[in-house]
């Protein structure tokens, strides 16, 4: 096939949150893309409602966090109830240095609307609606998509395809890729209702309520007086039975009476869902890069879907941009697959535990779950099993992009290689991420002592002066005491940070040769094995 060559190196399939975020992230590095969406408007399929702090930090990097903050409802705690008693309260940890609370409730329709607004205004992003991908053909030189549209079929040839087309990914099917992992039998109703309810924004969980014995109910507040209600169905009940209007109404009324809010309400939307912990074993297939739900299907518990997808996208975008711009070896993309497949597998393992607790798939798991609930009324030793483990940024400690492991280990604390950078509150409305996050590229944090720039630090600045790609140098004086302590730094300490804000090398005392070597490693030029 030899199709239209739109002079755009990348086509993104799917204009859901992950496709839109990837387009914006690529554009930060000057990489244009075509964004193909099968529907004629913003998608109606899935309905995420919680963004984690990491997701907001990613949106801040993209320069688009403001409307989310204005619209969303921040929260930081959850409570679980059993037999009318509060058996567990969890305060999600957050640091006084963080800009955002751990969770922000906001409907997916707003997430897409805001991201789409930014994409539509961006000159590098070409959004095309009503585009159904029907074929993929690739070789060493390029990849060609067959696209069906209301005006007929055409072919589109690009260098790279990002598949962000969701859980039912057409691209994944066309490539005949199979996921590994497990599907769980329990089925849930997820319903959004509009109701005036005066309760705070927090995660409410009810185990074994009288109206739905043995099962559980989750309740979440959303903006615009919208409430998310989520409950497991009795075993054996079909989707059709569960969504039957009279039964659904009766059950929603039971939930409202349980939370002592017997108010008027209207149903906005309802669907039936079951949990999976499935992932592809490889996210890079030639010139096709899979991301978000197209690459893995994760359980709803712990808000892992969109939040994992945004981390995929943030990991992928800079690497793809570096390869497209000729700043990095193509092998850099392999690290996307390695890092994010490992993340997906860990999330599957952890999400699987949550799922086995929330929706026990067998008599044994149900009995154990019930034993934990029964003990929770009088004993504390099992309470941590009720922790729901919200999605969090992955630690790329084993990444091939990390360098100088010995120098890393020499630190007592701070932020280790592979970990996400930690925010620091510098002043009332000024955080470290406000400066660092918004600049696309690598970052060097150089901790300067009272004596000013040492010859070593001056040489490091000189050695990183004229690189092909952007690298931002941040000098930190000793009066930045919080940053010093958070990074276990002393004068002369240097941190090298990837564009997705994970540390990839750090030294108590750095020299320019090692900084340049670490940069080469982090851009896919891993020569002579491990640099440790």
């Amino acid at each position: 096939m030899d199709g239209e060559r739109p002079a755009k190196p990348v086509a993104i399939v799917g204009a859901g949150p992950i496709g839109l975020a990837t387009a914006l992230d690529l554009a930060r590095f000057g990489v244009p893309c075509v964004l193909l969406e099968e529907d004629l408007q913003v998608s109606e399929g899935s309905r995420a409602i919680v963004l984690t702090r990491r997701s907001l930090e990613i949106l801040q990097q993209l320069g688009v966090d403001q409307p989310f903050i204005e619209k969303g409802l921040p929260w930081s705690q959850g409570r679980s109830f059993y037999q009318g008693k509060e058996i567990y309260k969890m305060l999600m940890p957050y640091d006084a240095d963080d800009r955002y609370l751990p969770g922000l409730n906001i409907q997916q329709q707003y997430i897409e609307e805001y991201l789409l607004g930014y994409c539509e205004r961006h000159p590098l992003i070409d959004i095309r609606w009503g585009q159904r991908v029907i074929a993929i053909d690739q070789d060493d030189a390029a990849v060609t998509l067959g696209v069906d549209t209301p005006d007929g079929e055409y072919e589109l040839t690009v260098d790279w395809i990002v598949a962000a087309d969701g859980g039912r990914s057409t691209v994944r099917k066309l490539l005949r890729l199979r996921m590994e992992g497990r599907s769980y039998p329990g089925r849930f109703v997820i319903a959004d209702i509009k109701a005036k309810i005066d309760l705070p924004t927090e995660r409410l969980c009810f185990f074994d309520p009288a109206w739905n014995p043995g099962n559980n109910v989750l309740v979440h507040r959303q903006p615009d007086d919208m409430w998310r209600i989520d409950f497991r169905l009795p075993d054996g009940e079909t989707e059709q039975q569960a969504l039957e209007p009279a039964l659904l109404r009766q059950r929603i009324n039971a939930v409202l009476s349980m939370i002592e809010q017997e108010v008027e309400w209207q149903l906005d939307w309802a669907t039936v869902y079951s949990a999976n912990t499935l992932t592809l074993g490889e996210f890079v297939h030639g010139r096709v890069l899979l991301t978000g739900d197209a690459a893995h299907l994760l359980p709803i518990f712990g808000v892992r879907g969109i939040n994992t997808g945004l981390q995929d996208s943030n990991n992928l975008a800079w690497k793809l941009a570096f390869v497209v711009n000729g700043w990095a070896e193509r092998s850099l993309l392999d690290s996307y697959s390695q890092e994010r497949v490992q993340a997906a597998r860990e999330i599957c393992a952890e999400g699987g535990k949550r799922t086995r607790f929330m929706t026990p798939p067998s008599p044994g798991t149900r009995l154990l779950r019930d034993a934990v609930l029964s003990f929770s009324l009088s004993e504390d030793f099992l309470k941590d099993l009720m922790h729901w483990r919200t999605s969090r940024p992955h630690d790329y400690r084993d990444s091939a992009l990390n360098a100088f492991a010995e120098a890393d280990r020499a630190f007592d604390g701070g932020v280790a290689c592979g970990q996400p950078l930690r925010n620091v509150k510098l002043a009332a409305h000024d955080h470290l991420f406000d400066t660092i996050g918004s600049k696309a590229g690598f970052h060097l944090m150089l901790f300067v002592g009272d004596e000013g720039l040492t010859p070593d630090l001056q040489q490091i600045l000189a050695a990183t002066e004229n690189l092909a790609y952007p690298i931002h140098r941040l000098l930190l004086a000793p009066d930045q005491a919080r940053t010093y302590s958070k990074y276990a730094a002393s004068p002369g300490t240097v941190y090298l940070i990837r564009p997705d804000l994970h540390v990839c090398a750090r030294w108590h005392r750095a020299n320019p040769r090692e900084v340049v070597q670490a940069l080469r490693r982090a851009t896919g030029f891993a020569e002579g094995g491990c640099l440790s």
Partner: protein
Amino acid sequence: MIEKKMSTIEIEQLYDLIAEGIDKAGPDKTGLFLAKLSLALANLLGDSKAVADAVLAAGRDL
């Protein structure tokens, strides 16, 4: 109160292991399996007072 002696990770692994044991035993033999497991654990613990406390705690809120 029963003292917490294991990490959450260890407890979670044992949680899955015991659940698998119950599923393998099957519904008719679940009680027998759990009784045998209790006796084995009581013996391994080797502390009569602790076992008696656990029996009392397990009997609450049934």
